[in-house]
C-alpha cells in the first residue's frame, strides 16, 4: 500500500516537474526543423494538444493497464528501451555495491583501533577516493589497465572482463565513505565494556572484531544503505558514459534533457519500486543484525 502511494506520488511530482520546465515538448521535438504544421502534427501525434489533466489521467490509466507508452524521441516502446538497459545497470550497480561492501568491511576490520599512523593513512586514502569524481577515476583506470596494460576492454557489456573497470570505478568512492562510517562505529564499539569481557575470555583479536564488533558497527552502515543505492545508480550514469556501456544512465539523461515524458516517468516508477524494495530489505536486515528489534 505504502509502495503504491510512493510510486503514485513520485510519478505525479515528476509529471508536474517535467511540464513546469521551460519549453513546449513539441518545440523541443521539432528541434532545428521549421515547417508550417509540423509542431501541430507532432502535438497531435503524442496527444500534447490535450489539456494537462487529460494527459495526466491518460498516462495513469495506461500505466494501470501495463502500457508504458512510446518514447517521443526514440520512437520506440518505452518498455523495450528501459527493459533492454535495465540488466546492464543492475549488473554494474550490484557488482559495485558488493565490491564496495567487501572493501569497506575488510579495510575497517584491519584498521579500526590500530596505530594512529595506519589509521590516518587509510582515512586519507578513503577521503581521496570518496571525493574523486567517478568520471576522473574511470578515465585513470582506463588509461592504466585498458590502454596501457590492455588487461580489460574499454567498452561494452560482453563478459565479466568488461565489468571489472566500471565496477571498481563505481565501488571506490562508495567504499571510501562506507569505510569511514564503519570504522568509526567499530572504534566506538571496541571501547564498550562487553569487548573487555570477551577479551578476558582469551578470544583472539580478529575473532572479536569479526564476530562481535562488526555486528554492532553494521547498524549505522546499513542506515547508509538507502544513500548507497542512490549513489550507485547516480554514479552509474557517469560510469556508463565514460566506458561506453549500455545502461539506463545515458537513456535517462537524454530523456530528461529532451522532456521525453514517457521514458522519464517509467524510470521514476522503476526507481520508486527499487526504493521501496530496498527499504523493505534494509528493515529485514536490521532485524537480522540486531535481534533486540525482533521483540518490537
Amino acid at each position, binding site marked *: 500500500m505504502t509502495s503504491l502511494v510512493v510510486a503514485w506520488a513520485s510519478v505525479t511530482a515528476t509529471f508536474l516537474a517535467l511540464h513546469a520546465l*521551460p519549453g513546449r515538448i513539441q518545440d523541443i521535438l*521539432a528541434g532545428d526543423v*521549421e515547417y508550417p504544421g509540423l509542431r501541430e502534427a507532432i502535438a497531435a*501525434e503524442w496527444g500534447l494538444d490535450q489539456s494537462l489533466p487529460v494527459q495526466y489521467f491518460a498516462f495513469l490509466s495506461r500505466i494501470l493497464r501495463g502500457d508504458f507508452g*512510446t518514447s517521443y524521441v526514440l*520512437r520506440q516502446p518505452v518498455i523495450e528501451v528501459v527493459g533492454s538497459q535495465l540488466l546492464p545497470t543492475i549488473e554494474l550497480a550490484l557488482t559495485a555495491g558488493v565490491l564496495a561492501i567487501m572493501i569497506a568491511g575488510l579495510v575497517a576490520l584491519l584498521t579500526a583501533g590500530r596505530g594512529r599512523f595506519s589509521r590516518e593513512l587509510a582515512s586519507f586514502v578513503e577521503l581521496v577516493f570518496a571525493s574523486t569524481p567517478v568520471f576522473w577515476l574511470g*578515465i585513470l583506470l582506463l588509461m592504466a589497465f*585498458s590502454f596501457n596494460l590492455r588487461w580489460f576492454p574499454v567498452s561494452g557489456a560482453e563478459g565479466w572482463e568488461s565489468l571489472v573497470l566500471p565496477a571498481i570505478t563505481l565501488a571506490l568512492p562508495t567504499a571510501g565513505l562506507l569505510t569511514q562510517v564503519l570504522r568509526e562505529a567499530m572504534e566506538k564499539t571496541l571501547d564498550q565494556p562487553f569487548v573487555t569481557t570477551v577479551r578476558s575470555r582469551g578470544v583472539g583479536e580478529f575473532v572479536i572484531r569479526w564476530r562481535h564488533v562488526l555486528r554492532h558497527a553494521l547498524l549505522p552502515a546499513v542506515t547508509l544503505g538507502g544513500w548507497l543505492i542512490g549513489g550507485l545508480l547516480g554514479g552509474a550514469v557517469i560510469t556508463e558514459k565514460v566506458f561506453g556501456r549500455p545502461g539506463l544512465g545515458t537513456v535517462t539523461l537524454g530523456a530528461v*534533457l529532451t522532456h521525453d515524458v514517457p521514458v522519464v516517468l517509467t524510470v521514476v516508477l522503476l526507481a520508486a519500486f527499487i526504493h521501496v524494495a530496498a527499504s523493505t530489505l534494509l528493515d529485514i536486515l536490521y532485524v537480522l543484525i540486531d535481534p533486540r528489534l525482533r521483540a518490537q
Partner: protein
Amino acid sequence: MKKNNLLMSGVAIALLATNAAGAEDKPVSGGALRWGVTTEPACFDPHYSSQQAAFFVSRNYIDSLIAKKADGTFAPWLATEWSISADGKEYTYRLREDVVFHDGEKFDAAAVKANYDFVKKPENAVTAVSLLQAYDHAEVVSSFVVKLVLSTLDSSFLESTSNVKLGLISPKSLAKGDLCGGGRALAGTGPFVFESYTRGQSAVFARNAAYNWAPGNAAHGGPAYLDRVTFRFLPEYAVRTGALTSGQVDLIEGVQPTDAPLFAEQPGFKLLTGPSGASTSFTFNINYTRPPADDVRVRRALRDGFDLEPIVKQVYLGTVPRAWSIIGPANPAYNKALVGSWGNDVAGANKLLDEAGWTSRDSEGFRTKDGKRLSIEVGYPQPYVRDNRDILIQGIQAALRKNVGLDLNLRLITAGEYAKNNANGTWAIYPNTDNPSDPARELWDMLGSKGFLYSNIPNPDQEITGQIDESLRTTDPVRKRQLTDAIQKRGVDQAFIVPLFAPSWFLAAKSNVNGLGFEAGLDSPSSAYDFWIAKK
C-alpha cells in the same frame, strides 16, 4: 605532418587521402572495421533524424536518388538520369532496374513515390518534411520512371533529392513504422545491411553482397570491401583516443585538437581532416530586433571589438581556420570577397559605442546607458556544446570586456529553454552550425523571413529576406550565385551574424585503414563503402 600543415585546405587533404589509397596497394576485400564515434544516434531512420552525427551512420544502409559531388554537381545513384521541366516544377528521374531492398522488395518508381508521400504526410510528423515544402505529389510514369511535381519553384530541390534525409526505405518497412530502433526492420538499399543494435554500446552492419549500384561519386563499384562495420559509441574524447591507440578500435571521429598531432605524427596511425565548413561556419546569430542589438552600431562593435584570429588559434591549436562568412570556405558558394573585410577594429568599435550613447561605465568597467549595462546574452543550448566551442566564446567574452566594455554573457541553457526562447523570439544570440544541403536553404534557415532561426521575429530585414526568397526560387545558377554572395555580404555587413570558425571533421585511424573520405552533401565522414583494410 607538422601542426601548421593542418591548416591546409581540408578538401585538398581529403583528395590527397583518396589518391594515397590508390597509390599504396590495390584495395582488398574482407575484414571488420570498428569505428569509435562520439554520438549515439537517437534515431536510425533518416527521415526522422535531425542529428548530423546520425547521418554518416545512416549512409551505410540508405541510398538516395542522386549523389552530390565535392564540386557541388550531381552524379547518378539509384537514378541513372534526371531532367527538370522548362517551368522548373517537374523533376523526372529514370531509375536503375536492378536495385533490391534489403528485405527482398524490388526498388521502383512506386517505392520512390511511397517514400516521398510518407515524408510529406502531416500525420507522420516526419522532420525531413522541411526539404519537401515545395513538393506537391509524385507520378509513376512507368515502372522505372518517376516524376516529382512541385507546387512552387525550389532551387534547392534537386539537392534535396540527394540528401540522406530523403533516402529510400523499403515501402514494406515504411508501412511497419517505428524504424528508429534500426535493425533488419529498417530496410534500405545501401552497401551494408543493418545487423544489430545494442543501445548504449554499438550498432553492427554487414556487407550487402548483392550491392551493385554504387553512387557516381564512389571510388569503386560492386559490393563494399569490408565484411562488417561496427560503430561503438564512446562519448569521451580521452576514451576514444585511448581505444584507438590501444588497438581496440580501428578508426575514430571527433579527434580533440590537442590529440590531432599525436595521430598525424605517430607511425601506425593517420589523421584526416574533412572539408572546412562545407556547409556552415560556427556563427553568432544575433537577434537584430531586440535591444540593445537592434542598433547596428552595437552589433558592429560586437563584430569588430576583438581579434578573432589568435583566439581561434589558441583554442584549436591551428587546426581550423577562422571564418569570414556564414558559409564555409570549402563550400563552392563561399563568398571569398568577405575575407579580410571585417573584424579586429577595436578603436572603431569603441567609437561606434560612444556614438550609440553607451558612454558611461559601471563599477566593473562595462559600458552603460541610462543606468543599464551594455549586456548581450549568448544562450547556448547545452546539448549542442562540443569541440570546445564554449571555451572559444569565453575567449571572445574576455576580449570584448577588455577592449570595448561590452558584456557578452555566455549562458548554457537547456534544450527546453532554447525551444521556448525561439518560439517567443526572446533569444539574443544563438551560436550554431547548420547542415542543410543547399546554400540558399542554409541562408533561409538562418536569416530568412520565416526561417529567421525558426523563430517568430517581427519585422525581419526586408532586403536580406527578399534576396533569400529569390535565391530559393531562381533556377539560373549565375543569378543564384549573385544572390548568395549578396546575402553573405549583407549578413556580415549589417552584423546580423558574426562568423567565428569553420569546423572540420577529424578522423584518426590505424594506418592500414584505407579509402577514408568525406561526403559532400553531409559535410561529414562518408559511409564505409570505399573503406578497406590492408592485410599486413
